[in-house]
């Protein structure tokens, strides 16, 4: 009996899994939390016999991982940062895949009255002028960068805000949990919000302004800088991501009957 238990231990220690083709891709939390990854990855594995290992991080960290060569490709949504990444020679090319949109979430009774305002910027101005609690990602992610650029368009500087503005420095899910706990306003991508399980008293209050569109792009890491990068695999993956097969899967992915992503690769 003791022998059995001991050999069980040995078996546990000995198990190491080896995949056939595997590559690492850094993606944004919003892509993964939306649940789309769970739909696409098994299909990719089936079609290409390729295991895509996801590192779920903010856009800022994803770009850092790409620069250091710790991943083979990145899938992020922050155009300016992506273009800088390319200009600095860290990526080979930038391929737009799909977009979704950002939405404003807040307490159901809407103390800042952002429901029905004409633009995203005026929604933020209402929140600031009423000093309603607002949770910011504060983690240099794509969502955070977008939020900062919107504050900029509203001629407001988050550095000067009082303590109604809470920068939590964590991922989308954790930030939503914080907003739910504090009953605060927050900007989220639509997919993460719909998939979020702890909504509490929060509701979707504002969406639809074109400035809130959120373009995702795929950037393979440059093999000239990092020779170990699996360029053949990233090429295969890129081909799949812009194919009709991916288009169908992305366009038909729904949560509660709502379409989340719109495929727009060329």
């Amino acid at each position, binding site marked *: 009996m003791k022998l059995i*238990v001991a050999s069980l*231990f040995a078996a546990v220690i000995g198990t190491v*899994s080896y995949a056939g083709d*595997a590559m690492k891709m850094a993606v944004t939390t919003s892509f993964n939390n939306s649940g789309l990854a769970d739909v696409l990855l098994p299909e990719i594995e089936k079609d290409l016999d390729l295991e895509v290992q996801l*590192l*779920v991080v903010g856009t800022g960290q994803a770009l850092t991982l790409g620069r250091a060569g*710790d991943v083979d490709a990145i899938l992020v949504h922050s155009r300016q940062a992506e273009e800088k990444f390319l200009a600095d020679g860290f990526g080979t090319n930038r391929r737009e895949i799909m977009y979704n949109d950002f939405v404003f979430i807040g307490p159901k009774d809407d103390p800042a009255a952002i429901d029905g305002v004409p633009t995203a910027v005026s929604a933020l101005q209402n929140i600031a002028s009423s000093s309603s609690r607002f949770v910011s990602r504060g983690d240099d992610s794509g969502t955070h960068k977008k939020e900062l650029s919107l504050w900029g368009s509203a001629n407001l500087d988050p550095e000067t805000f009082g303590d109604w503005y809470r920068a939590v420095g*964590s991922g989308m899910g954790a930030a939503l949990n914080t907003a739910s706990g504090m009953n605060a306003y927050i900007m989220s991508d639509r997919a993460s919000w719909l*998939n979020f399980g702890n909504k509490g008293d929060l509701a979707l209050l504002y969406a639809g302004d074109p400035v809130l569109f959120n373009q995702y792009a795929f950037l393979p890491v440059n093999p000239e800088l990092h020779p170990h990068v699996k360029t053949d695999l990233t090429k295969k993956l890129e081909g799949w991501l812009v194919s009709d097969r991916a288009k169908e899967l992305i366009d038909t992915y729904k949560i509660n009957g709502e379409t989340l992503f719109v495929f727009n690769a060329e």
Partner: protein
Amino acid sequence: MVDLWDGMSRAFWLVVTLDAELVEIALRSLQVTLIALVVASAIALPMAALLTVRRFKARRTVIAVLNALMGLPPVVVGLVVYVLLSRSGPFGVLGLLFTPTAMVIAQVIIIVPLIASIAHQSLRDLWAEYHDLLISMNVTQFQKISTLLWDARRALLTASLAGFGRAIGEVGAIMIVGGNIDHSTRVLTTAIALETGKGDFALALGLGFVLIALAIVVNLAIHWLGRTEREGRW
């Protein structure tokens, strides 16, 4: 409160139905932590014994530092291991970042001081008793160390189990160096962090209860395996 009950029933059903994903990440948790435990014990126990029997100038300093390092912040360990193993770091060519091996390395660094400190404490008490006897028998340094290690094995087991406890529940370091990759480096603690992020508290709690149960089962199993001799005082 509702979440807690939901969590317990989720844990129950996950275990009863032997959920494939749960089994996978639980086994990986065990695998990473047990390997780390074996490696760390192999380093820490002889080190503790050496510190007990050898007298040298910096001995007290080494012991004090070792004790202080028991509180080593896992996040910092994770960050340092990350920087070392990153492709742009000194050990980048090995390609170890975001693999289970990287997680083992981080855990070994975290638990070696803990195991060594606790082990040293009990070995020192034993050494006070054995000192005259072993000196009069004129045994070698190696024989002293092996006698101490063998005769204190029960206490050393406790030291190792303390290390196991710290390693299996650890999330800060392995999240950074492992990356929480599905089917590759996801373990129970990082999965709990992930589900909390998704707002699925019931599943997160369910995984948490499974983790606690796993720690208890492993502790019981090791105690039971170790009871080879029933006589004696340990």
